């Protein structure tokens, strides 16, 4: 029976083309324009899902974003998507969907036993049991029973995109309100973005073909509006785009589905799957419409039960009969629209059951005139039918609406639609912290006060339901926004589009919990939150147990916490709670609206910031050389630094040993370009540095360099480096690789905020210079071959700087050393870095020049006991702890100084930097090893006296060496300590933190 429920004509579908798709293995046809839901209904498929907790059979409940039931698993791994709302999935050729959360099949789901045991598992049952013997025995099965669809198992092959956008007016919602607003604002020349989650503009008009705007069918108006918007150069219309979040300062998040609606073979490879927009809007107009509220009656969840407006949508927009024989259940005039639609499109209308005592509106009158049987003052007391609705039971209500009379008269029907009024879609408004008021006449929450500037809510979202009022309101709001943004209509007043006001929304009879023939919870269930299987009885139980705040009710029962976030259920839940507590609905209040409006793909949040774009990789001018020479790289902040250069057959240890030895035996070369560099100029530069560093720089001679230490105001070491005086009023500071940006900001902060009187300018030149360090006894000989400079110690002593040419390139050369060897740090403009490096390597061949990486550098400096900030320090170490009192000036104030004299800083048992030598010199302590005083096996907690910060095999010392921070370490020289590891204990001796060339002869080479 292909598409046997498709009406012969009408609808916004392309009947000329058929699309083949499968649901749960069965093949069906639909048309372009269909959603998965409309196509299933066209084929008479109502059963599409099982519920979360009780595994009840569920059908298609709505026609849009609010769908609680019809969640399906789309596609196959790796492109599988769980929990997709069939009502929002656009049909494409070859679509394949499966039912989820059922076993072995949708029709026969064994898990339905939970339904039988439902009495044992009311809300919150898990808090009351499973404690004995332990939760761990129960957690596994419970986890497996929970969840809905399945996460993909394979990595997602798709790409996502992200962008920023700016506009004068952002209009959310492409219904009549949104269209009118976009047109009005767009015509003024303002920059407008209109977003609509659907693939078509028109909103509720798409389901109401008979309405007229400006004297023509509304469909024509929509078409013309869309056409006109396309001609306005400053207007952008985004369809298939959901505004999911409203953040502070009018930043809104949009999710655009770019290719999801194409058949897989049609998806353009260059396009992302989805795109996230972050729109900064001058003004925001929310025209998000309203969502119909279902009635809560017994067994209100069977396939074949849906919202009244959804039935109209399926009939009118998709030309699908949602059933053969229908009952309409309503508490307001709106239900009659569905009744009239159903009747006129050939559905057998069994009855309208109206909670109201009388129905007197224009639609109900028309319904009566058309001979539709109407029972006012009646309620639906229950339903039957397992996999599809079979019967509806109805009975008369008492005057108070609390009880029904009689046993319930059955009516055969396979479709039951209900209308309990409308909830303005205030989600985005509330996300932006707008407050709500309860409108008694409309019985709904509508926007009250805005908490964002330049914001308006119009149309049904604002509780304005009459079409002509909607158009007027939207038009006015848009003009006001455009005007405030500096765009006017140019004098001539533009008029709002007109329509005949339809007063089809009359007061309703507010009954949030429809009574049944049996007490609540007996012989059936009144579902409030269908997706989470929360019933009215659950809500009452929660309140009985003391969970009375609506927030507690929500969390105890989980109502509104499912993927639909309670779009159709929250107000009913609040109504039931209010009724039970004897409060008004606004007194109970709403729970917090949070982003997203509908769920957003993680991939879209990440956009292209994945894989190697997650974080930039910064590279030095010599990077390509390191790569070509087989370097292994280490990440230091965002930088890629050459770590070591293994030669054929070498492991890391062998390579590092070779590099370390070469630097001491002949000459090594290191790429040090990543060091931070800051040019400092001004008459107060020296004074400034004196305040920043613990030691004095104002007395430094021009051409000379000095090592300095910086502290934060809490006295803890923050960065270190060598600073050189280039001229009387010019210095060049170097910082650690990782600290460069922080130091620059730190300096600027002090200059701009605390010492604006100091005349100092700073400019970062980190990447202006390629820096290569040659180190070792042959460093001077090597350099001499490439420069004319006089390299003798007399004219170029340790800790000084010279300018000259190296390999024909103008260079700054610093004679400073982080290895303890005679070293030159050669700086050339980055564009020449590689050339000079290659020249040094070429000429260095005769000295067997050896490139060494950061690991060898670490070993070399550890042999000399030089610290590395971030390794020997961790934000809790002072210069005194490091034994660097020599660098802490007593004569002047500097940042952090006062902190050093606080009582705890002076304690003798503070952790202090020492060296460690293992008893067995071949044994290398693991870094991070904790030190204890005794190796007797005692039970934890075992007091620790310190830890190893750095530890290496030192080929130059012929044994392992380590640096450590040890409590009162300086008084422990020669003491024995033990590194207590999980599998062994290593004994070692405390020494000075200096292992090689203790007199420092080599430095002066």
């Amino acid at each position, binding site marked *: 029976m292909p598409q046997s429920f498709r009406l012969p004509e009408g609808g916004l579908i392309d009947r000329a083309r058929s699309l083949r798709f499968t649901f749960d293995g069965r093949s069906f046809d639909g048309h372009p324009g269909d959603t998965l839901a409309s196509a299933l209904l066209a084929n008479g498929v109502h059963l599409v899902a099982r519920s979360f907790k009780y595994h009840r059979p569920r059908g298609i409940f709505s026609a849009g974003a609010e769908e609680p039931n019809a969640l399906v698993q789309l596609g196959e791994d790796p492109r599988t998507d769980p929990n997709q709302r069939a009502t929002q999935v656009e049909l494409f050729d070859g679509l394949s969907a499966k039912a989820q959360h059922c076993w072995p099949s949708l029709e026969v789901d064994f898990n339905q036993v939970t339904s039988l045991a439902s009495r044992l598992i009311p809300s919150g049952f898990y808090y009351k049991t499973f404690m004995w013997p332990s939760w761990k025995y129960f957690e596994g099965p419970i986890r497996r029973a929970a969840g809905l669809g399945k996460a993909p198992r394979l990595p997602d092959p798709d790409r996502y*995109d*992200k*962008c*920023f*956008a*700016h506009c004068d007016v952002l209009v959310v919602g492409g219904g009549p309100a949104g269209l009118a607003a976009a047109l009005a604002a767009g015509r003024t020349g303002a*920059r407008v973005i209109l977003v609509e989650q659907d693939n078509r503009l028109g909103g509720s008009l798409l389901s109401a073909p008979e309405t007229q705007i400006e004297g023509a069918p509304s469909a024509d108006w929509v078409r013309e509006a869309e056409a006109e918007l396309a001609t306005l150069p400053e207007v952008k219309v985004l369809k298939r785009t959901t505004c999911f979040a409203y953040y502070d300062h009018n930043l809104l998040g949009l999710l655009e589905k770019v290719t999801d609606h194409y058949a897989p073979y049609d998806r353009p490879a*260059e*396009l*992302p799957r989805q795109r996230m927009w*972050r729109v*900064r809007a001058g003004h925001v107009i929310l025209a998000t419409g309203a969502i119909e509220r279902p009635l809560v009656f017994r067994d209100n969840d069977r396939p074949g039960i849906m919202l009244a407006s959804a039935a109209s949508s399926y009939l009118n927009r998709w030309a699908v009969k949602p059933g053969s024989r229908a009952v309409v259940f309503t508490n307001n005039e709106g239900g009659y629209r569905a009744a009239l639609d159903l009747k006129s499109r050939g559905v057998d209308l069994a009855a309208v059951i109206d909670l109201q005592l009388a129905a007197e509106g224009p639609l109900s009158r028309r319904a009566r005139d058309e001979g539709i049987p109407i029972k006012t003052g009646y309620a639906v007391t229950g339903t039957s039918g397992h996999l599809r609705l079979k019967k509806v039971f109805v009975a008369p209500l008492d005057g108070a609406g609390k009880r029904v009379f009689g046993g319930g008269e059955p009516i055969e029907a396979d479709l039951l639609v209900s209308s309990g009024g409308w909830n303005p879609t205030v989600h985005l408004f509330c996300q932006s912290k707008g407050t709500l008021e309860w409108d008694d006449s409309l019985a709904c929450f509508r926007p009250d006060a805005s908490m964002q500037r330049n914001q308006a809510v119009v149309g049904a979202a604002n509780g304005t339901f009459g079409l002509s009022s909607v158009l007027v309101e939207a038009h006015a709001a848009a003009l006001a926004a455009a005007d405030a943004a500096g765009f006017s209509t140019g004098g001539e007043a533009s008029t709002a589009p007109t329509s005949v006001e339809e007063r089809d929304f009359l007061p309703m009879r507010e009954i949030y919990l429809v009574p049944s023939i049996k007490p609540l919870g007996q012989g059936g269930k009144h579902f409030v939150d269908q997706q989470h299987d929360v019933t009215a009885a659950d809500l009452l139980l929660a309140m009985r147990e003391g969970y009375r705040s609506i927030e507690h009710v929500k969390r105890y029962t989980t109502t509104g916490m499912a993927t639909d976030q309670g779009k159709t259920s929250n107000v009913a839940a609040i109504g039931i709670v209010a009724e039970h507590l004897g409060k008004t609905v606004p007194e109970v209040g709403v729970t917090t609206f949070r982003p997203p409006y509908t769920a957003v793909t993680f991939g879209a949040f990440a*956009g*292209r*910031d994945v894989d*190697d*774009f997650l*974080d*930039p*990789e*910064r*590279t*030095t*001018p010599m*990077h*390509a050389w390191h790569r070509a020479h087989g370097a292994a790289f280490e990440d230091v902040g965002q*930088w890629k630094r050459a770590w070591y250069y293994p030669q054929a057959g070498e492991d890391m240890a062998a390579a590092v040993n070779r590099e370390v030895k070469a630097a001491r035996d002949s000459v090594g070369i290191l790429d040090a370009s990543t060091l931070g560099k800051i*040019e400092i*100029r*001004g*008459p107060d530069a020296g004074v400034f540095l004196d305040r920043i560093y613990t030691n004095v720089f104002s007395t430094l001679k021009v051409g000379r360099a000095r090592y300095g230490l910086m502290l934060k105001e809490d006295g803890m070491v923050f960065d270190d480096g060598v600073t050189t005086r280039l001229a009387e009023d010019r210095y060049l500071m170097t910082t650690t690789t990782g600290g460069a940006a922080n130091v620059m900001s730190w300096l600027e902060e002090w200059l701009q905020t605390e010492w604006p009187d100091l*005349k100092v*300018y700073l*400019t*970062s*030149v*980190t*990447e*202006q*210079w390629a820096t290569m360090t040659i180190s070792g006894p042959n460093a001077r000989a090597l350099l001499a071959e490439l420069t004319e400079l006089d390299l003798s110690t007399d004219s170029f002593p340790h800790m000084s700087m010279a300018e000259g040419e190296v390999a*024909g*390139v*103008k260079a700054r050369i610093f004679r400073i050393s982080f290895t303890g060897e005679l070293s030159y740090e050669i700086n050339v*403009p*980055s*564009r*020449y*870095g*590689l*050339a000079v490096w290659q020249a040094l390597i070429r000429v260095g061949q005769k000295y067997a020049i050896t490139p060494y990486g950061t690991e060898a550098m670490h070993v070399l400096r550890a042999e000399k006991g030089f610290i590395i900030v971030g390794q020997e320090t961790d934000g809790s170490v002072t210069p005194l702890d490091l034994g660097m009192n020599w660098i802490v000036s007593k004569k002047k104030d500097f940042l952090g100084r006062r902190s050093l004299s606080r009582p705890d800083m002076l304690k003798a048992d503070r952790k202090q930097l020492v060296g460690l030598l293992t008893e067995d010199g071949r044994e290398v302590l693991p870094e991070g090893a904790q030190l204890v005083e005794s190796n007797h096996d005692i039970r934890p907690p075992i007091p620790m006296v310190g830890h190893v910060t750095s530890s290496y095999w030192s080929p130059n010392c012929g044994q392992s060496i380590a640096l450590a921070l040890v409590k009162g370490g300086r008084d422990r020289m020669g003491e024995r300590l033990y590194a207590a590891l999980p599998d062994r204990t290593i004994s070692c001796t405390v020494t000075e933190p200096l292992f090689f060339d203790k007199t420092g002869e080599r430095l002066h080479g």
Partner: protein
Amino acid sequence: MVEDFLRQSPLSHLALAASGRSQRAEEDGVALAERPYRTVITLRGQAEDAVFVEAIQRALGLGLPRKVGQVSGDPRGREILCLGPDEWWVTDAADDAEPLVTSLTEAVGDLFAQVVDTSDNWFALELSGPRARDVLAKACPLDLHPRTFGPARCAQSLLAKAPMTLQQLDDTPAFRLHVRRSFADYAWRWLSDAGREYGVSILQS
């Protein structure tokens, strides 16, 4: 003067010169080109000091823009970008910054000011074509609409996760993007990827 062949663009590993075209292909929405070796001198000084302002103007033959985001001069020749209330870039088509550095240094003399050659600290890319704004919108939170930005304007911001100085060159629109040299490879690849949906022509520099 150092031999030309000694110098390297940070994108030399991509061998762009070999693959590049001379102009944007008709069907491509954007074109991308590297612009290495332009002179970029960072200038700091007191805009309220008339002596300083005059000294600079005399040395460069260009007015010193005073409002952050303003640019004076010729984007393809010599220009001054105002980056901060006391910070400018002097950029120049010349690939040797030294003469300009020298004349600026002399011009400021003992004034409280700073002249630093940062030509190699930065790396410039040019992005042009009808979709150039769309590509930038993926990376950068600035509003580049012609009503708020345009030729003779510059701004500092972010290019995805890299700090960037952006300037618009003309109404094509064409933009020049400066990132720190170490981010060159990241920025290039990022933009090529982001432009993919519109088509990217690679131009010779």
